[in-house]
């Protein structure tokens, strides 16, 4: 620690514990995945252990940070560091999603048409020689190798037309998630104006909406698997669909957990001041980010 204005924490055990937890986590994950067909494998326990120690470390680490914060150790400059840090972290997440969106655009506009013989680069011959029966449609219903076929186009996840709009889960999901962005925003306003009750209630509603979203998403996956025959194995449409929505769903859960923790901090520990609540603000940024990603998904995965 230095005598200066910027708080430089002392030695800490958390980082290396965290690194070790990550090590356990990925070792566990890799060997579990490699041994999926082996019922006698114990690899999953390493995975659980990794998760457990990761969460424990995170818990104590954040507790420490909050304590330091409450002790007034962090200057405005340090808070600014958190702000920048969170912003750039979100940017990195944007690029993570960009990889999957890029994959979607590429297969839709280039690879699938090529496989069906449209375009240059020997595409016509590709179709004739290798995949004679393949047709370029999106969603791809019958894969080039005729391997999988899920039922019908109108049963894909795409926009079903106005007649069926009300039964179309993605639309409800959009409504739910967009309103959760609104509620979290008003919760923030409540906090800023010192209205703790408004904050707690609206944040509670936000977390609830997050739960509904995840529930609806689960229902949608169930539908896809059970009734549409749309699975991870259904060729490229299933691949991009589940990758994008699944990765997004995972982020919703992360964001929801963050918000829930903020709620708990506010309700049980009375944390956050009207002028000083970056913990919450970071979580809410994340939430808005997740929301924006969903709008993109809605547009590119479901509608178009």
């Amino acid at each position, binding site marked *: 620690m230095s005598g200066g204005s910027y708080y430089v924490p002392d030695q800490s055990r958390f980082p290396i514990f965290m690194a070790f937890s990550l090590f356990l986590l990925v070792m566990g994950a890799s060997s579990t995945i490699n041994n999926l067909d082996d019922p006698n494998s114990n690899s999953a326990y390493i995975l659980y252990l990794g998760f457990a120690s990761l969460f424990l470390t995170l818990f104590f680490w954040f507790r420490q940070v909050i304590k330091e914060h409450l002790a007034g150790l962090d200057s405005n400059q340090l808070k600014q560091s958190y702000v920048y840090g969170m912003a750039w972290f979100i940017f990195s997440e944007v690029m993570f999603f960009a990889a999957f969106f890029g994959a979607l655009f590429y297969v839709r506009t280039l690879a699938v048409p090529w496989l069906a013989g449209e375009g*240059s680069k*020997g595409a016509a011959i590709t179709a004739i020689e*290798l995949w004679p029966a393949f047709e370029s449609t999106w969603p791809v219903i019958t894969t080039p190798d005729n391997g999988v076929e899920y039922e019908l186009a109108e049963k894909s996840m795409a926009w079903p037309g106005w007649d069926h709009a009300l039964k179309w889960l993605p639309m409800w999901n959009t409504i739910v998630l967009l309103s959760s962005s609104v509620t979290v925003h008003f919760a923030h306003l409540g906090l800023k104006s010192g209205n703790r009750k408004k904050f707690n209630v609206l944040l509670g509603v936000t977390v609830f909406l997050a739960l509904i979203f995840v529930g609806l998403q689960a229902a949608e996956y169930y539908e896809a698997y059970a009734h549409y025959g749309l699975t991870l194995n259904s060729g490229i449409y299933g691949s991009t669909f589940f990758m994008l929505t699944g990765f997004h769903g995972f982020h919703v859960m992360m964001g929801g957990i963050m918000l829930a923790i903020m709620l708990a901090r506010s309700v049980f520990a009375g944390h956050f001041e009207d002028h000083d609540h970056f913990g919450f603000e970071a979580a809410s940024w994340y939430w808005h980010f997740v929301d924006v990603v969903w709008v993109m998904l809605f547009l590119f995965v479901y509608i178009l």
Partner: protein
Amino acid sequence: MLTFVAPMAKADWFALNMTRGITDISNEVFELHMLIFWICVAIGVAVFSVMFYSIYAHTKKKNPVPAKFHENHKLEIAWTIIPFLILIAMAVPASKTLVKIYDDTAGDINIQVTGYQWKWQYQYLEDDISFFANLSTDLDEIYNLVPKGENYLQEVDEMVVIPAGKKIRFLITANDVIHSWWLPAFAIKQDAIPGFVNTAWTIVEEPGIYRGRCTELCGKNHGFMPIVVKVVEQDEYDEWVLNKRNEAIKLAELTTKDWTAQELVSRGQEIYDVNCVACHQVSGQGITGIFPALAGSDIVMNDKERNIEILMEGVQGAAMNSFSYLSEVELASVITYTRQSWGNAEKGDGEIVIPKDIVDYKEPKI
């Protein structure tokens, strides 16, 4: 050890530059290469001579008081614009040549080239000819047990034959992983992407034998799947086509012949050495963890049906691909060979597989 150094005399201290090639396109590419090479040399000489001049003349000893300047806008603009112009001078001819190379119209002869781990298949689309080209260099040469021949690692058991003066289009694809079909003399390098077809074309005026290689990492034997193209005059080519057709007819006749185990085994060994050793190894031991042993394999010893099925269909998601492109005779003999060798016959049921079995397997599927 020293004796095997002898063929090094064939090595070439003067192989310093790209070969010029033998087609119009490859000549053009060579000229382009030399053009950009000399431009780069000139730039290098210019930059380095100023630098070495400073190193020589502006040392602390000779120039104890350094100059004070640290910018000069005119100079800076000049050394932004001039390189830009040089680049354009390089890119324009390059783009022109590229447009020529990208001609995608059908050839007089169209050959589909398919990369396999680790061999090339050539199918002449018009003439119904199809064969595989495998590395023909002896394993003993590779393992330094005997001296290396002149065409070490650049010889195959069957060359691609094309006529001079005709436009040949290659339709390049792969069956398993990505390979890349490179023939320097034609200036063709096209990746073979499984599931997609890429095209390349050439017109060769000069008969001769031209050698190339696989240039995309494709696994263990990536270095051992060369390409050899033989360019011949038209009449010789026609003769070759006729011969290939006759061979195919003879092969078909063999299917109906009565086979003894012995005949199958000896024929099978050759096929095994060409098609299977790469993975399952000479003694059928495989490589632990990646390629299962065939010696002592339950399937090979006792399960004739599954054995045929594996060869015909391959194993999904594994390196074991379908070998259904081999002829019935070849399949029957290679399976019989594996079932009879390495003690498999003694420990297992010892049954043999005859070409008829393969024909039967194919039957209901049609």
